[in-house]
């Protein structure tokens, strides 16, 4: 055994072969994998949408319960939160702690509004008088739309919720006095995740909602 030493522990970022920080490579690999998660869910929804178009013998018109104005609003809110996220990353790169804090706060608030809209939407759909959409049925008849709809949008909502908790973690951290430009890369990874979750919603919104009005 060689001499164990007591040198001060230094936290310099190790030099990597590509020059890209390890955590960023990890996050990109994870996002690639996450694409396949949502790809599977969206495919499931699209497959059933076409082959289970009726309920109890009647053509299924899900527009009866969709509230496209509300969903458009929450889509806008989620997209706007990405702007706050980008500004937060930019602010921490410049070392502007105060601005970072406010931008993180903005992202959290907008993410929370989106989640609140989703909770309202789910509750509303399950209890829609005469048009109840549950996990297993529509208007009391067994159907698949509720299954694919809730599991797909619910998985997305879970992603948003994880993102919100992650951001709250950063917001709390910003008050400990330890936050500095050294954390910029970590916050950037959080931003990558947040933007990705937004992009997924940009796909889900037309595929699950808007398409019902077009085809």
């Amino acid at each position: 055994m060689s001499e164990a030493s007591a040198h001060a522990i230094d936290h310099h970022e190790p030099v990597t072969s590509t020059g890209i920080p390890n955590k960023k490579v990890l996050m990109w690999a994870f996002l690639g994998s996450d694409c396949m998660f949502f790809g599977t869910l969206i495919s499931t929804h699209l497959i059933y949408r076409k082959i289970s178009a009726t309920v109890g013998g009647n053509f299924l018109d899900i527009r009866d319960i969709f509230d496209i104005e509300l969903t458009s609003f929450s889509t806008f809110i989620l997209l706007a939160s990405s702007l706050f996220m980008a500004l937060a990353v930019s602010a921490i790169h410049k070392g502007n702690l105060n601005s970072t804090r406010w931008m993180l706060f903005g992202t959290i608030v907008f993410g929370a509004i989106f989640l609140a809209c989703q909770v309202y939407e789910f509750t509303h759909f399950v209890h829609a008088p005469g048009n109840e959409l549950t996990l297993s049925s529509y208007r009391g008849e067994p159907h698949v739309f509720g299954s694919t709809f809730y599991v797909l949008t619910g998985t997305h909502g879970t992603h948003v919720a994880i993102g919100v908790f992650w951001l709250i973690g950063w917001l709390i951290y910003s008050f400990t006095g330890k936050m500095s430009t050294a954390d910029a890369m970590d916050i950037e990874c959080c931003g990558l995740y947040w933007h990705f979750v937004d992009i997924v919603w940009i796909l889900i919104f037309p595929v699950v909602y808007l398409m019902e009005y077009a085809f």
Partner: protein
Amino acid sequence: MATESLKYLNPDSETEVKTKVFPRPGQNTKGIINWLTTIDHKKIGIMYGMAALFFLILGGLEALLIRSQLWNHNMDVLTNREYNQMFTMHGTTMVFLVIMPLSAAFFNFIMPLQIGARDVAFPRMNTLSLWCFIAGGIVLNLSWFFTGGSPAIGWFGYAPLTDTRFAEVLGDMGPDFWIFSLQILGLASLLASFNFITTIINMRAPGMTMMRLPVFTWMTLIVSFLIILAFPAITIALVELMFDRTYGTNFYDFLEGGKPHLWQHLFWIFGHPEVYILILPAMGIVSEIIPVFSRKPLFGYGLIIFSGAIIGFMGFAVWSHHMFTTGMGIVATSAFSILTMLIAIPTGVKIFNWIGTMWGGRIRFETPMLFALGFITMFMVGGFTGIMHSSVPIDAQHQDSYFVVAHFHYVLIGGALFGLFAGFYFWLPKLTGKMLNEKLGKFVFTLMFIGFNLTFFPMHYLGMIGQPRRTHSYNEGHGFETWNQIATIGAFILGVGIVIGVYQFVTAAFNKKLKPAGKNPWDARTLEWTLSSPVKEYNFARTPIIKARDQAWENNYGPEENHSQKEPLDDHGVHMPDRSWYPLITGLGFLGLVLGMLFHQSVDVNTGEIIRNYTPAIAGGVVAILGIIMWAIEGPAGYHLFPKEDEE
């Protein structure tokens, strides 16, 4: 604690000892805590290997019970349901708890040494994957003790076998255990793969360009990409199935609008890349061994890498050849048939490259080489029958017969397991510092080779004359008895061979009679053989500067300009990350979450209503989340070692 003060108190600076909720074990921790909190990729590799060898014996016993049941017509060793449970558990265990973790053991132990790294990119995450794998193994095998016993649905869990309505036993929990264990095993594989991808892309030693990476490391990279892209499909399919079974959704419920066919597609979109996840690591191992024992560089290095990548890529485009008889229509069936034939080309290229490597070489028939040769020959047999199955009419005849059983056992035992055993015989001297007993090794090879072929070659014939697979018994008068008895005898010979082999591996570290191995006992070619055996905890005292592909060989025999150099000794010493309790705590949290979800439902005896109690699941989840938060707060930290230059 002495070690603590040694670690944290620096006479030159004012650093203070920080008190923490769970004090971090110091660098000299011994005993069980050393293993529970380790973040050393070598120790993690050893634990992966030990656990997988245990499951290999367990899965092997299940196989022997199946073979005993088939010894003669209408035997009663197992009941119908027990038989179904046995082949389900055998398949699931061997795929997820044996071959994959054995590959992960080699990825962990060998890959960082081959690229000149001191550890993987995220050491604590690596530990978490280990604990998730072990939790998955525990959850799967706990199923034996609860309502309905183990799952009896096949390792593929086809709908509607998993439908609660068709459960043989009321309230059968087997499929639930199966679902949750696969989820947590999937998490383990995903975490490990993100880690390996980052490590190989980012932590190569200076001069170790991508086209100088050893083939095994390349295969690690390709397999990791396969895992992160294939596992999401099964994860979502299992989530949907869990919702079907627990919350009454209709994803696979054909009575209420669902399509069982969708399960097959989602399962095989994962399941076919999984086949390559199982075989590519063994191909990587064999590609390391054959050049060493032929004393020639690998023939067509670039082609082997490229074929591996093509196999990985095309592996995502052939899944429906598992479903030719489900009536997908002519276009889909033809397309998948053609693609399946095409994927045989890169596989064939690899075989010719290995033959080309041996051609004109000075071949030494030592145990690793014997297993590697066994791999090539028997993988070829499995490959040929695989090509037969790519033809739709032939596949329609073979579907669900013993011919298919013969085919995939030739690929997975004759292929993957022989490759992995070759890896054990090849790299254990590096791990333990001692040579294995060569005679015993050759004896194990002989037993396994004979036993394996006795077991599985007759199955080709049995399948051709019509014995169906996954069937509890057969009647008299079909002429199945003789070949089944030969297969059963072979299975026991194979079992004895494997047990002796496992005994040899497990005792290698403690056996005092074995000869010391030295740095490079096989006169091998890659970077790990420039290190002492066993490898020091910091791997490389000084980071090597790589000048050539087969660096260890070039250092010994190559021209001066190809010799590797070393980075100057750093005043700061070697930075080592600290041990941590949090991967274990987070893993236990996940285990609690999964068990809580498994047992959250109960039925009210009086009203017959379902009662849901999420408290244990939430408690488990909270433990996992707290573990992750504390993990983030404690940071990687670390200490420094000052190895002397010659101590590698």
